[in-house]
């Protein structure tokens, strides 16, 4: 997984906004703040910045306690790749959420979808894939801050 993330990161650097033409499948993101404090949205690094630019509608800067935010992310990287990386700080912890889709090569010219999700630290942050569509690659995730 790490090698693939580095690959995506390098690809982000190569692909500019002006050259974007073919988007990967969208991911619908729900962020639930179940902590007693407000969760503040952060952007750290290229992937988080790119996610912010690719998010529609724009993520809220703050998610109040026991509230949630909803947005979609679609990357113009490639039709076979999409990812989102977001950071939220609440209750003394910064959650690092990541999710990705890659169309892996199958027999002949076929591909098969591969979705991933990750959250750190695991003690306060949970990431779950809620729904996947194998036909288009579109998927939904839920990120929870405790």
């Amino acid at each position, binding site marked *: 997984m790490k090698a693939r993330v580095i690959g995506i990161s390098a690809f982000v650097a190569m692909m500019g906004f002006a050259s974007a033409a073919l988007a990967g*499948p969208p991911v619908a993101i729900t962020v639930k703040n179940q902590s007693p404090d407000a969760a503040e949205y952060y952007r750290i690094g290229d992937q988080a910045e790119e996610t912010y630019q690719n998010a529609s*509608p724009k993520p809220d*800067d703050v998610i*109040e306690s026991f509230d949630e935010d909803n947005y979609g992310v679609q990357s113009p990287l490639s039709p076979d790749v999409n990812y989102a990386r977001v950071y939220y700080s609440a209750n003394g912890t910064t959650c690092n959420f990541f999710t990705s889709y*890659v169309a892996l090569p199958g027999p002949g010219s076929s591909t098969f979808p591969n979705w991933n999700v990750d959250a750190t630290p695991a003690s306060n942050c949970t990431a779950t894939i809620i729904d996947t569509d194998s036909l288009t690659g579109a998927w939904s995730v839920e990120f929870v801050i405790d």
Partner: protein
Amino acid sequence: MAININPNAFSPSATGTRPAERAAVTSDARAAASTSSGTIVQDGVSLSATSRQLAQSAIQAEQRDASLTRSQLADEASRLRDQFSGNTYNEAAAVREVPDTDDPALLERAKQATDFTQSHGQRGTNPFANLSDDQLTLVMYDDSGSYTTNERRAAYLEQTDRRQDWKKSVVAAGMAEYKATGQNDKFFQNCIDYYEGLPPIEQAQYPVDYVERRQHWIENNKPYSGAPTINAIDR
């Protein structure tokens, strides 16, 4: 003092106002705000204390928006939001705040806002639940003292609820659109339309090229039918 609450006196709709309509609203507001007595009548419409405050807020917002660059307006929005949202909101101080007025309606409104915000919406009703989206923005970003911190927070919570309802539905519709067509043209257009209906201080908080990017995607993101590129990405 006679009070006839008519908070929608300056709003043509409860779901937001286009820029041209917003200019007309501000013109009406300027006339209404010039009167400081109790209930006044303009064009047969009885104006409440809340309506007069909103009128004054509209004038101040117009002056603020005209005097700042987009970047400065974004900074100002951030400063003002810190007063009533997130972990910079000073709950203890806000509870002690009493509006500088002897108007019983305004005193009651402030109390109602504090009850509502302190109970996280579980007790009482939001005194600004009937305002339009634009009017909620006026209340939120007015730190002149017309509204208490908890009143501004109540307006913010109402706006957040409405925006989340819209975001949830527009994202769900966008996913359905993509699964059916392989494109997100309507979804991106909905996001552009929403952005273009926002007041300047809300727009300033978006990426500068928010519309340009989505317009570009509408024009260029067509269903893909070529060979997979995964090998190039994984190297």
